[in-house]
């Protein structure tokens, strides 16, 4: 057996897991892991965007007409809210890299507030759709009879896509609570920031999904009919 010299071990960081050589390796692994996970997420939503693309090509008029039933002011506010939350998230990551526990906590709480505002507005929109009988299924009602079926497909896609997006946001809020606890306990800081960084990556991804959903669902009607 060779007596290969062990690489020099720096002072053991409390957050260093036993199977990593050093904190840098651990943080790189976490970051790569999240990127790979986001790759999976892209394909996950990608399947839905494919379904959307095909049915929009099949039923362009019905999709344009259905799109008019979505609430553009609320959608626009939500878009701004979500972009704002990405900004505060980026600042939380920056604070973590600067070892500012207080900064991490403040910006995480701000991000969570903005995320909750988004979900609240989404809930209001959902309840409007419920009252307007725009939820696909036996209660579905649509004024223009010729679009009855394709409009159901549009709203099926609307609810599945925005619903999955909202579910991802709820998961993100849960992750942020976890990060808050870690920041409070002092796990985050002292050079260890990758958990906040990967939660940030995830949050930005969720944000980007909305950046695609908003025009594809809300705005196509305006474009197609020149309103």
């Amino acid at each position, binding site marked *: 057996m060779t007596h290969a010299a062990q690489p020099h071990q720096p002072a053991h960081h409390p957050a260093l897991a036993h199977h990593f050589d050093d904190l840098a390796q651990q943080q790189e692994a976490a970051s790569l892991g999240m990127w790979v996970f986001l790759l999976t997420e892209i394909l996950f939503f*990608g399947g839905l965007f494919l379904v959307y693309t095909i*049915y929009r090509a099949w039923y362009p008029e019905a999709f344009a007409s259905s799109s008019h039933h979505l609430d553009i002011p609320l959608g626009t506010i939500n878009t701004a809210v979500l972009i704002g939350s990405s900004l505060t998230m980026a600042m939380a990551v920056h604070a973590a890299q600067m070892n500012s526990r207080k900064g991490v906590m403040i910006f995480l709480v701000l991000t969570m507030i903005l995320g909750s505002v988004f979900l609240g507005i989404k809930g209001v929109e959902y309840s409007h759709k419920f009252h307007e009988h725009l939820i696909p299924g036996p209660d579905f009602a649509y004024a223009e009879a010729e679009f009855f*079926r394709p409009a159901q497909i549009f709203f099926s896609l609307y609810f599945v896509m925005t619903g999955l997006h909202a579910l991802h946001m709820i998961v993100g809020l849960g992750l942020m609570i976890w990060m808050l606890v870690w920041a409070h306990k002092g796990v985050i800081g002292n050079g260890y920031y990758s958990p906040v960084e990967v939660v940030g990556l995830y949050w930005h991804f969720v944000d980007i999904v909305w950046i695609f959903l908003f025009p594809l669902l809300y705005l196509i009607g305006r474009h197609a009919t020149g309103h």
Partner: protein
Amino acid sequence: MAAEFPAHHYLNDGYGIRSWLLTRDHKRIALLYLAAITVFFFVGGAFAVLIRLDLATPPGDVVSDDTYNQLFTMHGVVMVFFFLIPAIPAILGNFLVPLMIGAKDLAFPKLNLLSWYIYMAGGLMGVYVLLTGSLDTGWTMYAPLSTRFSTTRVAPAALAVFVTGFSSILTALNFIVTIHRMRAPGLTWFKMPLFLWSTYATSLIVILGTPVVAITALLIFVERLFRFGFFDPALGGDPVLFQHLFWFYSHPAVYIMILPAMGVISELVAAFCRKPVFGYSFVAFSSLGIAVLGFLVWGHHMFVAGQSVYASLVFSMLSFLVAIPSAIKVFNWTATMYKGSVSWDTPMLYAIGFIGLFTIGGLTGLFLASIGLDVHVHDTYFIVAHFHYIMVGGTIMGYLGGLHYWWPKISGRLYPEGLSKLSAWIIFIGFNLTFFPQFILGYLGMPRRYHAYPPEFQVLNVLSSAGASILGFGYLLPMFYLAWSLRYGRPAGANPWGACGLEWQTTSPPPTENFAVTPTVTESPYHYPSPAVKHVA
């Protein structure tokens, strides 16, 4: 020279149920998977036994028509999602990836344990489906049969597929990060064992393909529950779109099943011929080639589904291309054996069986890639025989070969050689007797998934059923003698085969942290014939 059994190893590092169910040791998690996956293998096998029993006579007088539909469906669902896809990655991959790269564990040990629990959750949903009314749509769950007409438990079954998919995704993510970030000093990409290349390629397919079947299963679920019209033409949807989405994953899934087995075979051929694998980099890149091409051929499942003829032509051509990386592997294994000092240990018997059976399965795949011929044998037993040659003749042979090769490392003990060779032969003979007649049946026009058949097909069906009983017996044997060896087998020593590879440099069974000192790699993975002496710790 009797080998010593190490005093401290991962198996005696903690006792009791908690030390297993809360373990983060990749080796213990591999054994958790081994236990669960073996159960599902025999459940899926029991369905196959009943199918073959029913098909022994033309009228189909053992089970009812509905039960028969449920049997072949559940056989497919259990075998594909709960056995073939996870088997080699989750058991052998989990055990070996950190050992082969000289790491202490996978990058995310807790995530690894979580994957097992997710797998078990999906598995329990599968059991729930089974106990509460089963599924009769075929494992493919084509819409609108699945979304409108079937009266069986489609929604929970779709959810089970969805959940189990996430278990494979998390395992694949763990492998990718581990292989990128945790290799021992000196272990460059081109010094990695080929098993790692194929595991890496497999993980890429899982990462890119599985989410698509997950979303498809979810759409089936909501369409079934809420009557959202994604795939049902009566609601304005497109059933062929379901087939596109389904096969976009489920064809690459075939490579999720076969690529890890190919990686195993590369290890076995090198170890038992005592030669470096011929054309190492070609074999490595052919794994990636198969992973990439695998995503471009799904349309060959839809030649008769109303797909455009031009699309079919392109899919046909791309399907032919898959033969190139596959053949590279087969030729290179054969070239490795050429003038090697081949030893006929049990794992090598499985490896040779794999090469022959995979070649038959692969060549008949070319028949099916030709549009004209495919239309003739579409949905016949020819297809059934073809994919069983790949999945049973390929994946299970590779899995069993790998299990026999690394069993001394996993358990620290040797199994009875005579009995294990005998069972390898029984499996090989039983397999061919089961599935070769099905090629002929299919060519003669016997459709798959039918409960009854004309009397002139009976001789071939009886042959197939007889083969299945031999095959089933062959599969039971390793379960008994491997379990026996856990207690009574002779200690194996660190390197019973005299094989290269980091996993053979540590004790058998390895300590919890795998290596006493992090190894440094200076040589190629197959620097044979150097560690020539057998049974030296």
